[in-house]
């Protein structure tokens, strides 16, 4: 038969057909489309005006803002504070170096076939915290010391989320293994630990960590406020992490455990060499999602008086010099978070899709 070259018949012009199929199929859809379109048209215009057309971008002091549109000037004037908090100007290069290293180790993760991206990623996870440990607070290698009370803004937000997730990973693994242990008491302890931490709101945890912890510790043992917030966040987060990892452990077929047993690998080698590498890879998307939610939750440190990015903005929007800049401030913070979270969540979705197909082959 020679008609295999025949083309599919075209019923109508493409855009018209597309609209009929996707927008106006049936009266219900038509009503919906018109309703949504009306809402869009009436709201987008004023929003655009406020955001861009009537907005003030340049100037050097508050009087440059007309008050009709957004006053983005406020953001650009205070940007330094929003990013670095009270970190001394002349030392901010140290933070910049960390930002750069962060970008270098993680941006390539979005680029398939980037040479050595695995190593960069590993550096990001294990090396970066070490570099940061020396660089940000200073006090060694001839670097001037910067008290943690001077850290703030976006930088603090990132530190909290980053350390929180990385420190909670090993604890989460242990808890997950414990929860799947055959020893009932170990399992019980892990279950109780996980469920209690997951049940309480983060702000109660932060409250306890920030002002009550010294009460529980022997006299003389003391950490910085930031360190304590981190301990609280980490323990809280490790409970969530444990549940994510447990999901991965459960997804490993029993045959893998048996094969490892048959090869004579003991418990820790079986877990370390065979089970965990597979389980962790499988739950990377889950870990990334946990990271995103932790990242958003770090804003709660505002309630215990740490100046994260929302805290810095919140503390400046009441500056009498600027008129009504609260919305601009919130929009700015929202935008910062959105860019990070959306980017990362897209990445995790990609990963999910890739792992998904990788599984079948």
């Amino acid at each position: 038969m020679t008609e295999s070259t025949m083309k599919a018949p075209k019923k109508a012009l493409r855009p018209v057909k597309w609209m009929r199929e996707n927008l106006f199929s049936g009266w219900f859809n038509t009503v919906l489309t018109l309703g949504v379109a009306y809402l869009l048209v009436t709201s987008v215009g004023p929003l655009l005006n406020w955001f861009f057309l009537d907005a003030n971008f340049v100037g050097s002091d508050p009087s440059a803002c007309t008050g009709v549109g957004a006053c983005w000037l406020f953001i650009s004037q205070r940007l330094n504070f929003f990013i670095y908090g009270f970190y001394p100007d002349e030392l901010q290069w140290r933070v910049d170096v960390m930002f750069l290293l962060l970008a270098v180790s993680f941006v390539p993760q979005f680029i398939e076939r980037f040479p050595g991206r695995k190593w960069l990623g590993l550096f990001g996870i294990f090396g970066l915290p070490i570099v940061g440990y020396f660089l940000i607070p200073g006090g060694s290698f001839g670097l001037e010391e910067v008290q943690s009370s001077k850290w703030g803004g976006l930088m603090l937000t990132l530190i909290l989320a980053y350390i929180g997730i990385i420190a909670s990973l090993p604890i989460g693994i242990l808890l997950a293994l414990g929860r799947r242990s055959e020893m009932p008491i170990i399992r019980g302890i892990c279950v109780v630990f996980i469920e209690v931490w997951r049940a309480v709101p983060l702000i109660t945890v932060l409250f306890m960590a920030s002002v009550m912890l010294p009460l529980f510790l022997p006299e003389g043992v003391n950490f910085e406020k930031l360190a304590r917030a981190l301990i609280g966040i980490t323990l809280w987060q490790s409970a969530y992490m444990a549940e994510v990892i447990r999901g991965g452990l459960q997804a490993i077929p029993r045959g893998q455990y048996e094969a490892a047993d048959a090869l004579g690998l003991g418990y820790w080698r079986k877990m370390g060499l065979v089970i965990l590498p597979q389980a962790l890879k499988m739950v990377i998307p889950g870990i990334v999602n946990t990271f995103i939610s932790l990242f958003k939750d770090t804003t709660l440190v505002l309630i215990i008086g740490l100046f994260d990015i929302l805290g810095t903005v919140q503390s400046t929007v009441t500056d009498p010099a600027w008129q009504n800049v609260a919305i601009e401030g919130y929009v700015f913070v929202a935008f910062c978070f959105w860019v990070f979270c959306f980017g990362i969540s897209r990445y995790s979705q990609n990963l999910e899709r890739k792992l998904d197909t990788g599984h079948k082959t």
Partner: protein
Amino acid sequence: ATTLENVKEKGHLQCGVTSGLPGFSQPDEKGNWTGIDVDTCRAVAAAIFGDANAVEFTPLTAKERFTALQSGEIDMLSRNTTWTLTRDASLGLNFAGVNYYDGQGFLINKGIGVDDATQLDGATICIQAGTTTELNLSDYFRAKGMEFKPIVFDTSEQTVQGFAAGRCDVLTSDRSQLAALRSKLSDPSSAKILPNTISKEPLGPVVRQGDDQWFNIVKWVLSVQINAEELGVTSANADDMLKSDNPNIQRLLGTDGDMGAKLGLPDDFGYQAVKLVGNYGEMYDRNVGPDTPLGLDRGINALWTEGGIMYAPPVR
């Protein structure tokens, strides 16, 4: 270990302050703290270390402050805190003195057309959580047979934001703060402070119970500053005053006697505190006085010799 030993070991004093209240404690963009409460901390640091900067500040909300002090998170609390019996007795705290005599007042939106607190029946009132203000307000309205609706915020910033957004008719707080808070409004002239003062609010530094030495240190550093004003010793003339032959001044600055040693401090602790931070009057003028944005008159905070009630026991 005693608190003093701990502080010396750390090399700095950990001091709890508000997270932002003009005139009392407020960080600037660089994270440098200023305010009368902050200066009280600095004076203690100066007395211990001879360095007014050997102090770190922990910003606290009203809700957190006592727990933070109780737990040992901070060494002293200098955060416009009202001295009450309960706090002294059952919270395990000790008030080391008064660095500002205050009273609770009302800031109202001019639009509601009220000029006395007795007309506030049914008003919505913004307050900061965990303060005596919350209790005084209840007492006051109950005594007057009036009703009110409390809106309770965590920080004074949020309280102002709530007031500015029109959530309440009235903002209540210590009078000293009302002016500062009003200055944060985008249109300060839209609000006014009512003449009424409904409570006594003696504000001062607080320490934990059970460490009398530390309690004495904080108490006497504050007293030294008040006495210094009375004796005319200032940070500017402190060096000259070292040569003074007034025995009161000599004891104050440590050129005579072992006042410091009795407290476990260097003998020149008074000199250091006054030299590096200033006397009480200087502290007041610098932070809340008439020449500051707050513009508060000395009023009852003037020395007893000048018609006020600021009176410190003698250094002897």
